[in-house]
């Protein structure tokens, strides 16, 4: 009987400390948010807040689109999610899967490799303009200053804006700006 009591105690102890263990696990998971290490840092932030009440933001629109699987994969590989969910306002040019497929073979596969993260991030930021720019405003602007600090040229063809040679196929208003679906991937001009 004494032994039984002891085992109960032991069990209780184990339960108590198991609880501690779980807590610890949670704690260390949360803690990665405060790490300097970039690979873990970017997993936290506004991009990862569940919010099904607001208008979808630029990232959620891309994720929800059947034609932007490559783009979403690239955004995730480059870990630039948080840049697309900020209050912005942002204009995002979203190349379709077909546009990515039109790149020379192996390009995308190469870019999503961890060692090319910076290059990929640079290309993706070249698709983002600070500001909420409708197609009609775009026709009035000769160039756009992109988030990677380079400019992309805007031409007007048949009254429609053509962005760095890419046509706008569709435009979707986002909670934090606007997404223009484009038929070509924009490649940043070579830096000096």
């Amino acid at each position, binding site marked *: 009987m004494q032994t039984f009591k002891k085992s109960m105690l032991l069990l209780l102890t184990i339960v108590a400390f198991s609880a501690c263990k779980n807590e610890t696990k949670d704690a260390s998971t949360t803690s990665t948010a405060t790490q*300097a290490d970039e690979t873990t840092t970017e997993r936290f*932030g*506004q991009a990862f807040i569940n919010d099904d009440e607001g208008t979808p933001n630029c990232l959620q629109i891309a994720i929800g689109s059947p034609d932007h699987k490559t783009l979403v994969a690239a955004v995730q590989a480059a870990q630039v999610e948080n840049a697309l969910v900020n209050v912005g306002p942002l204009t995002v040019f979203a190349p379709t899967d077909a546009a990515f497929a039109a790149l020379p073979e192996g390009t995308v596969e190469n870019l999503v490799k961890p060692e090319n993260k910076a290059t990929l991030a640079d290309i993706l930021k070249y698709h983002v303009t600070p500001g909420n720019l409708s197609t009609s405003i775009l026709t009035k602007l000769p160039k756009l200053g992109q988030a990677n600090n380079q400019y992309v040229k805007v031409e007007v063809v048949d009254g429609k804006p053509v962005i760095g040679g890419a046509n706008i196929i569709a435009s979707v208003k986002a909670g934090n700006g606007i997404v223009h679906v484009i038929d070509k991937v924009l490649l940043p001009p070579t830096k000096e």
Partner: protein
Amino acid sequence: MKNLLKLTIVTLSVLVAFTSCNNQSTNGKSGALTSSAAEKVYVAPGEHDEFYAFVSGGFSGQLAVYGLPSGRLFKVIPVFSQDAEKAYGYNEETKPLLNTSYGFIPWDDAHHPDISQTNGVLDGRYVFINGNNTPRIAKVDLTTFETTEIIEIPNSAGNHSSSYVTDNTEYVVAGTRFAVPVPQQDIAIKEYKGKFKGTLSFIKVDPEDGGMDIKFQLLMPGFDYDKAHPGRGKSDGWFFFTTYNTEEANTLLEVNASQNDKDFIAAINWKKIEAYVNNGGGAMMPTNYAHNVYDEYTHSATSTMKKEVLMVDPSEVPGAVYFLPTPKSPHGCDVDPTGEYIVGSGKLSANVTVHSFTKMLAAIENEKFAGEAYGIPILNFEDVLAGAVEQPGLGPLHTEFDGEGNAYTSFFISSEIVKWKLGTWEVLDRQPSFYSIGHLMIPGGNSQKPFGKYVLGMNKITKDRYLPTGPEVTQSAQLYDISGDKMELLLDFPTVGEPHYAAGIPADLIKPNSKKIFKLEDNNHPYVAKTEADTKVVREGNIVHIYMTTIRSHFAPDNIEGVRVGDKVYFHVTNLEQDYDVPHGVSIIGANTSELLIMPGQTETFVWEPKQVGVWPFYCTDFCSALHQEMQGYIRVSPTNANTPLKWSLGEDID
């Protein structure tokens, strides 16, 4: 027995195993959840914080005082808005502080606090802060933690590039955000270009009493002036202002003011202009603005309307003003502690641009100009550029310094703080902010001598960081330890109103000077009653002045008769207490105010206009003593045409 022993050993080892699990989470990498982070922000009961932080209350119009590292709120100092907690702007004494050329404005938007300096080092005498909407600069006295002066800024609109002090607090500076017609006039908005101007105001601060006076205004082109920073040390004598909308657009600025590759940082040699003005330069221009001063001895503020201001045309002071091209609508304009580097944060740029003061002087010396704008020479970007931090993040806003050669820049869009090295421009560390940080603050981080132990991030978005409170969630700040190579997030804490900027200072520079009571003998209030024998009630037509006192635990007088419906009754209440932390309050049924909060030795006044016949109680509204609930009195209100004699008493009935 053996079994039992085994069992005990097993239990013990389980204990050890799980205890060590616990330890791991404590020592390890769990950031703010570790006890080490907790210890760093824990200030034990009864202990004091190491720093004061004065955090702007944004649209609340106030200035909040927090302790760092604890994040505890000590006081909300009312500045530009009425405050029901302290009767500020409600009592008769402080109402004049909120007077303007537009009349009584009980609410403004408080932005950028800055602490006074001596020789480029925080001296802890005053905090200056700007009212953004109806342009004003306020001074808060750090012996009383009360607003003691507010000066309106004429010819200004959206007083945003304010209120920064020079190395010896010779000037506090206020730059207009919006260009407007100067002087104001009825013209078409489309006449903006060329007709609208931006003024930069230099407000002289009296070295003795801190009194403010607009020495001159500089009439600049019609750009938007965003932020400002004085030169430090070697660049003392200069002032730098970021500009945007150099396109001079007057509609859809989100597109039209983002067209130029570069806007400007305006470099102003204020010492040169000061000399010009002292030699009779500039032209007096008729205007109208309020100058409001609170006197600590009369416990009352007065408002004076000023009718002219000295206007300086920069084209008439050659060599005083230059433009430094700076990429993409720069927001932050920050000068490092040595005064050599002028950091411009182009908010639409991915880079942080740094100009060199030495190179700027050389370019001016060589008269190498890229052109001019409204007669003001533009220097070549390449000639003044010290370097750039390449792609540290998105949306750079503001930079402060730790005094160890490092800079800390906030990035709004990428929501992070980036630490980088002055001179090499290399990124040393980055930490996320939760979320979308605006400004940041290191105590003394904009002076020659920063106290680089913490950086305080002030965030624009809070979202899921606290328990939800409906669509409106709290404003928020975050504290990071910057004493090591890597920043470490220690603490989230809520703030009052939107925290635009803050000023921090070691507590030891302020604490010894903090006043405990006001000396009753020094009270020069016109309606003071320094003893109960001095209390009285005086009728002047339908105005009734009650000279009242408070002491634990009664009012004198506490029975008053002879007041009539339609009277205007002024309660002038003097707190006779001379003990630290024994304020009294007072209010009466039907009054528009529900409290005065009267500090020991102080006199405050509220007005009561009795509307109903009867006998009405008044009481102490601040829990003062064990007999606080006994601290009450009655006023008998008779009909308008009654002839009840005016009488008062304490401790005996009125005959």
